[in-house]
């Protein structure tokens, strides 16, 4: 299992130079982020409430609360999540909690989870960077995405490879 995902990882790194332009274009076009939900500096008591968050986490199949935005993450852990999603070709909604302290507190209380980033799939809280990384490495992320109708780019690449005569065999 581990070897499979190492192979997947290696492939995706190897593919990166070929596809980076395409991916960048995809990100620009399809991944939405909301530094626009930047609020005026919130007082410490202001917290985005539960019902607002319940709607927010369902605005897309994948929703991420992070530091910075997908093109310029402000934290290594948020960046790792962005890179994982990029590898899988996932389009998602991203919210920059550094722009909105009330949102940052609100989402932490909503999930009872102490750290950022936080990833939601189909409105369900999945976890932070460590869990995403482990789901990615075990191959389970591909399955989780499939459940909500997202076919991972890594899976497509793997399937294309298995088609005979589409790619030369590498030993």
């Amino acid at each position, binding site marked *: 299992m581990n070897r499979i995902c190492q192979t997947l990882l290696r492939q995706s790194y190897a593919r990166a130079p070929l596809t980076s332009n395409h991916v960048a274009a995809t990100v620009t076009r399809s991944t939405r982020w909301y530094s626009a939900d930047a609020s005026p500096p919130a007082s410490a008591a202001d917290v985005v409430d539960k019902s607002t968050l319940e709607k927010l986490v369902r605005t897309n199949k994948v929703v991420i609360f992070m*530091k910075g935005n997908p093109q310029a993450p402000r934290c290594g852990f948020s960046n790792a999540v962005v890179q994982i999603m990029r590898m899988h070709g996932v389009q998602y909604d991203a919210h920059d909690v550094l722009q909105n302290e009330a949102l940052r507190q609100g989402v932490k209380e909503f999930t009872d989870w102490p750290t950022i980033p936080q990833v939601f799939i189909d409105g369900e809280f999945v976890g932070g960077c460590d869990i995403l990384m482990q789901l990615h490495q075990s191959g389970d992320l591909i399955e989780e995405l499939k459940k909500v109708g997202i076919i991972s780019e890594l899976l497509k690449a793997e399937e294309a490879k298995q088609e005979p005569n589409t790619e030369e065999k590498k030993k």
Partner: protein
Amino acid sequence: MSQATQYPPIETAMRKALTTELKPVFLEVINESPQHNVPKRSESHFRVLVVSEKFNDLTLIKRHRLVNDTVKNALTAAGFEFMHALSIEAKTPKQWEPEQEPEKSPPCLGGFGK
């Protein structure tokens, strides 16, 4: 108890709580704060590798919640806030090989001072 005092206060509280609550067969606590944009001798960024039978029937997220809650309760009791970042690897004894090193955290990107 005497050997616990060699760690700074937050790390000491974490180690003690994780040891008593989770009865780990292996525990590693790493203070990664020096890799980040924080004052010297901070206790802001930690990574833990916990190997415990208690994780046997728990999903990944429940394991992480168990570790988070254990740390949170211990820090609250000791008068500290939850740390800025806590990376968790929570494994069962079956999933763990003794020579295994903890994963590496991604490099800091500045954190915007927060």
